[in-house]
C-alpha cells in the first residue's frame, strides 16, 4: 500500500491551515494599525502638545494628559525598580533555593498575570480610601505594583545568566557578596536589567484600569501629586466614548501616541537584548 500521497496531502493541508491562521493574525494586527494610523494621523497637530484637554466643542490638545502619564510612569518606575531589582537580586544571589524564594517566585508569577483592574482596586482600597481623594501618587503606586513583577523576573533571569566563574573569581579576590553584586554582577547583567525596565515601562504606560480608581482624571493642568491628574489612557477612554467629534479625534491621536511609544520601547528592548547576546558571543 502506498501511503505517500496521503502523507503529502496531510502535510499540504497542515501547511495551508497554519498559513491561513498566520495571515488572519497578521491581518488583524495590520487592520488595527491601519485604523489607528488613518484616524490618529488626521488628528495629529502641534496643538496636541501645547494645549490642555478641551471642553466639548472647543479646540484643545493633550498636554496635561501627556504630562500626567509621563509623571506617573516615571514615578511608578522610580518606586518599582529598586524593589524589583533588589528582590530579583535576592532570588538570584542570596536565597536561590530557600523556601521563601519559592514562595516569592510563585506570588510574583501570580502578580505578573493578575488583571490590572484588581491592582487598581487594591490601591483604591488601601491608599485612596484612606487619603479620602484620588491622586497622582496613588496612580503611580498602582503602576509600580504592576511594574515590580516584570522587573523582578527579568533581573533574576539576567543575573542567573552571568557565568558562575565570574562570581567565583570576584570572591576569590576577597570581595564580599554585596561588592561582587554591585561591581561585577550588575555591570555584567546591565543591558538585561535595563531591558526589564523598558519592558516594565511599556507594560504600565498603556494601563487604564488601575488609573480609573486611583489617579482618576483631570480636565486641567495639574502638577500636584496629591490631586487627581490627567493621563492618556483614561482621557482616551472618556473621549472615545463621548458623542463629540473633537474629543473622538483627540482620543485617536492619543491612542496613536501611546502605541508608537510602546512600539519604540519594545523595539529598543529587543535591540538591547540582541546587543547583549552578541556581546556575550564575542566574549567567548
Amino acid at each position, binding site marked *: 500500500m502506498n501511503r505517500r500521497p496521503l502523507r503529502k496531502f496531510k502535510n499540504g493541508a497542515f501547511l495551508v491551515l497554519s498559513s491561513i491562521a498566520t495571515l488572519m493574525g497578521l491581518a488583524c494586527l495590520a487592520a488595527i494599525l491601519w485604523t489607528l494610523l488613518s484616524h490618529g494621523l488626521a488628528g495629529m497637530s502641534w496643538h496636541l502638545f501645547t494645549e490642555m484637554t478641551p471642553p466639548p466643542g472647543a479646540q484643545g490638545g493633550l498636554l496635561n494628559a501627556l504630562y500626567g502619564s509621563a509623571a506617573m510612569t516615571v514615578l511608578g518606575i522610580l518606586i518599582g525598580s529598586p524593589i524589583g531589582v533588589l528582590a530579583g537580586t535576592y532570588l538570584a544571589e542570596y536565597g536561590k533555593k530557600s523556601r521563601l524564594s519559592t514562595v516569592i517566585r510563585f506570588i510574583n508569577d501570580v502578580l505578573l498575570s493578575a488583571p490590572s483592574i484588581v491592582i487598581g482596586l487594591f490601591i483604591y482600597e488601601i491608599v485612596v480610601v484612606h487619603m479620602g481623594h484620588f491622586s497622582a501618587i496613588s496612580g503611580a503606586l498602582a503602576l509600580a505594583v504592576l511594574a515590580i513583577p516584570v522587573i523582578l523576573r527579568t533581573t533574576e533571569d539576567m543575573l542567573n545568566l552571568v*557565568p558562575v*566563574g*565570574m562570581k*567565583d*573569581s*570576584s*570572591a*576569590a*579576590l*576577597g*570581595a*564580599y557578596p554585596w*561588592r561582587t553584586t554591585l*561591581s*561585577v554582577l550588575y*555591570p*555584567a547583567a*546591565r543591558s538585561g536589567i535595563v531591558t526589564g525596565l523598558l519592558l516594565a515601562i511599556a507594560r504600565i504606560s498603556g494601563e487604564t484600569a488601575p488609573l480609573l480608581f486611583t489617579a482618576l482624571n483631570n480636565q486641567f493642568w495639574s502638577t500636584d501629586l496629591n490631586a487627581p491628574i490627567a493621563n492618556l489612557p483614561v482621557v482616551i477612554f472618556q473621549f472615545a466614548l463621548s458623542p463629540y467629534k473633537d474629543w473622538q479625534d483627540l482620543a485617536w491621536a492619543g491612542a496613536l501616541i501611546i502605541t508608537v511609544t510602546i512600539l519604540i520601547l519594545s523595539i529598543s528592548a529587543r535591540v538591547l537584548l540582541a546587543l547583549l547576546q552578541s*556581546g556575550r558571543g*564575542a*566574549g*567567548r
Partner: protein
Amino acid sequence: MMPSAKPPKHLKLRLPYPVAAATSQDLGPPKIETRALDFFYGDVRSLHDINMSLADRSITAFIGPSGCGKSTLLRVLNRMYALYPRQRAAGEVLIGGRDILSASVDVAELRYRVGMVFQKPTPFPMSVFDNVAFGLRLVGGIHGAELKMRVESALRDAAIWEEIKDKLHADGRSLSGGQQQRLCIARAIAVQPEVLLLDEPTAALDPISTLRIEETLQALREKYCIVMVTHNLQQAARVSNVTGFMFMGELVEIGPSNEFFTSPKSRKTDDYITGRFG
C-alpha cells in the same frame, strides 16, 4: 640526583624554555602544610587524610583522573568551597603557619592572600585596567600613580603588558582567550598574594596561548608559591618543580617532578603516567 630509570617515551619533549631541575634539596621551607585533611560534600567524603607540605617559590602540580579530588584540594586552600552549602573540610591547613580552616579566619582576607585563577577565563565586565585594579581597590588605600604602577607591574609579570599596553581602556572581554587568561593571572597577582592557585588554567586554551601561560608561570615561580591542577601530564612535567598524584581522594605520591616522572615510587603513579589507566 640522577634519574634511576628511563623517562617514559611520551614525556621526552623538546622544551621551548629552560626548566630548572628541582630536587628535594632545592626547595625552601614549606609555605603550605596540610595535616590529616578530609573533605566532605554533604555525607560523601572526597578527600582522605591529605598530608603534604609545599615549598614557597615553587610550582606544585597535581595530576590525576577526573573526580580524584585535585580541584577540591585546590578549593580548600582558599576556602572557595565555603561559598557552597553542605561542603566542609576537617583537619589542618597551615598557610604561612596559620590554620586557615579555623573559624576565626576571615575568608575575604584569606582569599586576598591566596589568589586563584580558574579554568575558564573570567574577565569582569570592565576595562582591562579596572580588571587588574579590582583587587587593589577592594583593599583601598592605593590610588593614582601608585595604582597605575601596580597594575602595570602585574600586567608585566603576567607577560601581557607589551600586547595590551595600548588597550588598557578596552573591555576585558574583548581580548582573545589566551590574553583573557593572562589578564586573570595579572588580576590575581596584582594584590601580591602569598599563594597562587591555578585550576587547569590552560584547559580552555589553544597550544600557543598555553605556551605563553606556561612561560608566564615559569617567571612567576621566582616570586610565588604556585599550586596548579592540570589534566595534562606533559604540562606538569614541563612546568612544575613538584608533582603530586591523586587518586580516589587520596594523595598517592608527591615529590620532585623529575623523580616523580622518571622513577615513581608507587605502582599506581607509574600506571597512570605511562597511560595504563585514567
